[in-house]
């Protein structure tokens, strides 16, 4: 089924054949360094491979589409992706999905120097406004009339096994009845891996992944999270989220369930 849909989609989009030849799976599975980005990806009853999609370990590479090729799920124009040695950016505009009742004037995601951020402009889902600059991994449940409760993640930020940060401006899972779910990812960028500091390499609590950019899941300078006692922050990155500390055992007795 998925193959048929993908084939139909590909057939209808000869102009983006090159983009389709470089699906996101390639970028995600890429264990080499460098950044990667894609504009749109959909998984479900309507499959749209990651387009436009780009990755690069060196000089900046770009892939643009004036318009998202025809499909029954989503319309968008001005799709732009760029990737280089450190990260990349993705953007699209005039996003509209009557089926999912999703609209956005513009959606962007960037990853630079190990820090990810995203922005939505005039975005709504089922008439409900979506936060323009959400904190990382902000989630919402939005009832979509006729469909069900959509789960939305704004500014989704995750790390892969290589410690590389991926930021996706908007990710949605919309139930379509039964067990069918339509998943949609818009404006997604993967940073390059941040080198591990020598002093972290043998740290048992970090597993060698507590690179300087680990705190990039929080936007530096976010007003809601200035430095705290546990996170005094640094001048270079005052809002960084620190690694949770290993616990210090305290003397105490609690009868537990043996």
């Amino acid at each position, binding site marked *: 089924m998925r193959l048929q849909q993908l084939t139909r989609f590909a057939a209808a989009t000869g102009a983006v054949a090159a983009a389709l030849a470089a699906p996101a799976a390639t970028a995600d599975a890429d264990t080499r360094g460098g950044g990667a980005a894609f504009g749109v990806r959909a998984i479900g009853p309507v499959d749209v491979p990651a387009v436009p999609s780009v990755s690069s370990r060196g000089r900046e590479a770009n892939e643009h589409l004036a318009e998202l090729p025809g499909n029954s799920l989503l319309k968008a124009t001005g799709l732009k992706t760029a990737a280089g040695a450190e990260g990349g950016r993705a953007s699209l505009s005039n996003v509209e999905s009557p089926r999912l009742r999703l609209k956005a004037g513009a959606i962007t995601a960037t990853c630079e120097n190990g820090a990810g951020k995203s922005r939505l402009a005039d975005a709504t889902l089922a008439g409900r406004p979506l*936060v323009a600059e*959400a*904190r*990382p*991994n*902000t*989630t*919402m449940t939005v009832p979509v009339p006729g469909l069900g409760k959509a789960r939305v993640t704004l500014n989704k*930020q*995750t*790390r*892969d*096994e290589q*410690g590389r940060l991926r930021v996706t401006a908007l990710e949605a899972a919309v139930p379509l009845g039964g067990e069918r779910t339509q998943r949609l990812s818009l404006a997604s960028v993967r940073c390059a891996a941040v080198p591990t500091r020598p002093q972290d390499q043998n740290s*048992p*609590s*970090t*597993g060698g*992944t*507590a690179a300087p950019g*680990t*705190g990039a*899941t*929080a936007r530096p300078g976010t*007003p*809601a*999270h*200035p430095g*705290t*006692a*546990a*996170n005094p922050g640094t001048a270079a990155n005052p809002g960084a*989220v*620190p*690694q*949770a*500390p*290993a*616990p*210090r*055992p*305290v*003397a*105490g*007795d*609690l*009868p*537990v*369930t*043996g």
Partner: protein
Amino acid sequence: MKQRSEHDRRTVPRGFGVGAAALAAVLLAGGCADGGRAGGDAAGGRSTAALARLPQATTSTTVAGLPEDTAPFATSDGTVVHPRQPVPVSARPDGEPVAMLPDKQLGGPTWVPVVESRPGWRRVLLPNRPNRATGWIADRPGVLDVARSTQVVRVDLGDRRLTIEDSGRKVGSWTVAVGAPKTPTPTGRTFILASLKPTEPTHSPLILPVGAHSETLDTYGGGPGTVAFHTWPDASVFGKAVTHGCVRVPRDALARLAKVPLGSPVIVTA
């Protein structure tokens, strides 16, 4: 049940910071839902006295009216939070408080995992009964410390195996003893609640309670039926379903578990 009720009544005023001063600090710091209300009309319209009467979210209490974890086997993004002072817990963002989350649990700092975020709010797993209880706490600068744990503990009851992952990579795996059929280890997502050094370490140098409780035992050994990781003097138990709900682990597993930050997710599957 009787024991928990007594505990609730006993601990609410004590754990809340001995009276009005601590409560005033909570309210002045914006611990209430809207932060803009003054005086007694705090935290969703509740008076300070009403807040003081709320149950505490601890391993020894039961709190009704809180939403269940909707993704009990999912991995979170690793965000953990520590309230610097007792904070109100609501069933939904901007909702009326139904409990207070203390800044300490079992003598150590409270760290709980974040399973969902909305602007100004964090949904966290809680240490109280019933299992899989979650609640929303206000995300206020100066009130919540935020950190990130890259570590996850997984317990497969069927395989009787405990695995620790760090950033998605397996760093250790051990055969363990799990709950017996009549006293099973509860499944779902919980978290490392505390690290206790027993005064008389008869069977384990450390006890690592988690946020879950036995579903079949209201109390156990005078405690509230809290599930925990600990070692066991007889290695023949490993690989068997013989406990009252706890997970007995080899010594090297406990040594590695002791390094897992408080609040880190523990995911137990059947």
